[in-house]
């Protein structure tokens, strides 16, 4: 080898050696930090840390503007509620130990605990509770309507709270277990840091130093908490995962003790990683047939057309094709947890395209005469729209799809721009909530404000009748709505919450996340 070639060879050798050394050093440095040492690893549960995944960041800690459901874990960590709900929805005492209604259910009197203090030292009393309730009623929470009938809230004495209602609210006690019942220190109202620095009386306090807003929220035990038996962990870590892939990777890497699954197709992999898939049904999915008076879609004004649409769909096939088989078919919008639920309504409309065609004929429509304009959104899979078009096409109803930007989709639907749509909505755990969300003329998801004498009469009984009368009316209302085909639900999709082998949890009726006190380390 010539001297020049030898030098070049040596130079190349050094280049290769340098590259190799860099690679080895990097791998060694990373490899010597075991994944298990990171927050949220399985061993973390043993040292008293519960690490859970969430799919949204905390919008605000200001109770009057707070959101429930996906944000409930953040709020439950730092705030107490007036009442508690068991996993099955049963209302239990909490800050309020006793309560009673007057004869016409328009005045609710609650007896409060006297041994509770907010983390800023302010004492919790009836005055603080009244201020919180009125402020929530006047705020901009998505659940603000829960207190729409609250005329006033007053402190009779430090431990007695009186709520005066403009009309009975059969779901009020249930609502007071959620964000309307959260108790924030009145001293924190309107302060500059209120939205990011919670001051409550809850089991944990936000560790702002360890928290990365929008990504990771860390909470440490409130040392002065009045109910220490509810503090199952010394520390809570809530990591925000914005994609199903990130959740799956966190589960497979055993970085979290629990997380909601936004994609049920990952369930086999989740189970393969040793996690338990805890399922429940919180929503209904299918067609909303808004225009029951036929204002912009005349055919929908005919009940036989709406019934025909219900008969047109093979719900089992839809569940299998769109919902990967996770869920339960139904023709009703009522949750199995609500008093109005009737199992018979789940199978009220079997797949029967012949009957559908016959109904259309009876209604005076022959094949191809009906065209429904429906919005499409990237929020649902293309298969959903393709199958909708196919099933309706099979009975002679054409679908004119209008692609709507995700930013406008909800607003357009609620502004009554379309007579029907594919949509997934909450199957509310109480009948009254179902009515206020989807059925009454004032309900948001009744954008054409459909009025019906039978519905009004039954709703009145549900609102003001005895418990037995209300339950009977709720079932009758469910049956009536299904028979009138106000909706064409296909199925209730399974909402899945995954937990690791070290964590025990019970899913919460009506909520996407198990309540915080339901998480318990497995022994």
């Amino acid at each position: 080898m010539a001297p020049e070639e030898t030098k070049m060879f040596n130079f190349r050798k050094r280049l290769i050696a340098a590259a190799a050394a860099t690679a080895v050093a990097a791998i060694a440095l990373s490899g010597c930090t075991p994944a298990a040492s990171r927050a949220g690893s399985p061993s973390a549960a043993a040292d008293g840390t519960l690490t859970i995944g969430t799919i949204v960041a905390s919008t605000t800690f200001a109770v009057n503007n707070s959101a429930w459901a996906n944000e409930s874990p953040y709020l439950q960590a730092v705030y107490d509620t007036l009442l508690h709900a068991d996993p099955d929805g049963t209302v239990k005492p909490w800050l309020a130990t006793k309560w009673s209604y007057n004869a016409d259910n328009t005045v609710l009197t609650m007896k409060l605990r006297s041994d509770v203090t907010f983390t800023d030292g302010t004492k919790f009393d009836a005055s603080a509770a009244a201020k919180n309730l009125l402020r929530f009623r006047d705020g901009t929470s998505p659940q603000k309507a829960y207190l729409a009938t609250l005329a006033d809230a007053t402190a009779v004495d430090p431990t007695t709270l009186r709520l005066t209602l403009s009309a009975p609210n059969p779901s009020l006690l249930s609502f007071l277990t959620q964000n309307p019942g959260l108790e924030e220190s009145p001293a924190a109202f309107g302060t500059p840091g209120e939205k990011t620095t919670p001051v409550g009386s809850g089991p944990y306090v936000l560790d702002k130093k360890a928290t990365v807003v929008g990504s990771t929220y860390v909470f440490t035990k409130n040392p002065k908490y009045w109910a220490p038996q509810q503090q199952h962990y010394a520390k809570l870590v809530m990591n925000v995962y914005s994609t199903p892939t990130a959740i799956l990777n966190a589960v497979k890497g055993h970085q979290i003790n629990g997380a909601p699954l936004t994609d049920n197709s990952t369930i086999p992999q989740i189970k393969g990683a040793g996690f338990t898939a805890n399922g429940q049904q919180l929503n209904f999915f299918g067609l909303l047939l808004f225009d029951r008076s036929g204002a912009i879609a005349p055919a929908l004004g005919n009940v036989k057309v709406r019934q025909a649409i219900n008969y047109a769909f093979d719900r089992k096939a839809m569940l299998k094709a769109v919902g990967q088989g996770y869920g339960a078919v139904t023709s009703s919008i009522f949750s199995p947890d609500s008093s109005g639920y009737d199992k018979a309504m789940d199978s009220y409309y079997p797949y029967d395209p012949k009957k559908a065609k016959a109904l259309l004929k009876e209604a005076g429509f022959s094949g191809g005469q009906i065209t429904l304009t429906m919005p499409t959104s990237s929020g649902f899979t293309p298969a959903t729209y393709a199958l909708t078009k196919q099933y309706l096409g099979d009975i002679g109803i054409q679908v004119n799809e209008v692609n709507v930007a995700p930013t406008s989709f909800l607003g357009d639907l609620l502004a009554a721009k379309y007579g029907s749509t594919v949509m997934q909505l909450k199957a509310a755990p109480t009948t009254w909530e179902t009515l206020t969300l989807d059925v009454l003329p004032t309900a948001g998801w009744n954008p054409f404000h459909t009025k019906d004498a039978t519905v009004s009469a039954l709703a009145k009984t549900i609102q003001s009748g005895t418990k037995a009368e209300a339950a009977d009316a709720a079932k009758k209302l469910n049956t009536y709505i299904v028979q009138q085909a106000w909706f064409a639900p296909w199925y209730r999709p399974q909402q899945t919450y995954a937990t690791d082998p070290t964590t025990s949890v019970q899913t919460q009726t009506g909520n996407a996340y198990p309540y915080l006190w339901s998480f318990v380390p497995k022994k």
Partner: protein
Amino acid sequence: MLSFIARRIVSGVILVVAISVIAFLLLYAGGGNIARRLLGEDASAQTVAQKSHELGLDQPLISQFGSWVSGVFHGDFGASWFTSQPVSDAIVSRLAVTLSLVLGATILIAIVSVVLGVLAATRGGWVDTVVQVVSLVGTAIPGFLIALGLVVVFAIDLGWVAPTGYVQFTTSPQGWISSIILPVIALSLGGIAGVTQQIRGSMLDSLRQDYVRTLKSRGLSSRSVVLKHVLRNAAGPGLAVLGVHFVGLLGGVVIIEQIFAIPGIGQVAVTATSQGDIPLVMGLVVATAILVVLLNLVVDLAQGWLNPKVRLS
């Protein structure tokens, strides 16, 4: 040189202002009903209207833009509508995370590309062929697929590193390396492929120059010729491509941060844009525009330092 820098800064400021105006108009034009998106499907129409008023969305567009500009001049970019965090805090806390990924990837690209480019150009033969094939493959495979593959192999199957999350350097230097190594590798591969090809091509061009033969004839070692002369001449085009890749990495990091759940600018950019979080998006747009303007300035200055001809022109 000073007038060159001044001209660049003035044009950069104009660019940032223009981008801000266009971004603001586009966001509002395509924003839809932001209050409805913020409150969700169950909120009543009255609550949505109340929220719109609270956010100032019921004001005329020019008034909203004026308020935003006025706030910016007072150092107040507003607060995120979806996390309530001040925009400046959100950007500063996340910028360090993203820059650690992008700078890490840039350094890795620079080192590996120089090594591979020099090897391919000077050795030729099968080494050159292998480098070319690897470069082609690196260019063809999208970064997110590489990221997913790395997660499956090194984080899930082997368990060497955690699949998601980020550890601050101040918390644990080792944990920090552990948390960024896979994202950095995933980000780098495409860049390595491109810059390696550029270095290789520039090296081959330079090696064919007369001055190389002259230097060798004067008895300089090949190592000296390659490192001190050829590589320096070939570095200019490589640096230009590296600068372009740096800007590209700011785009690529968006997906990578999503996959690894890393709290960086990319992750928040995707979330804020899809939600319609206008204050945060505007802050990000301005911050990114300033970053890119500064980067281009640095690259131009570095080019001038490396090549006197650039300084003269």
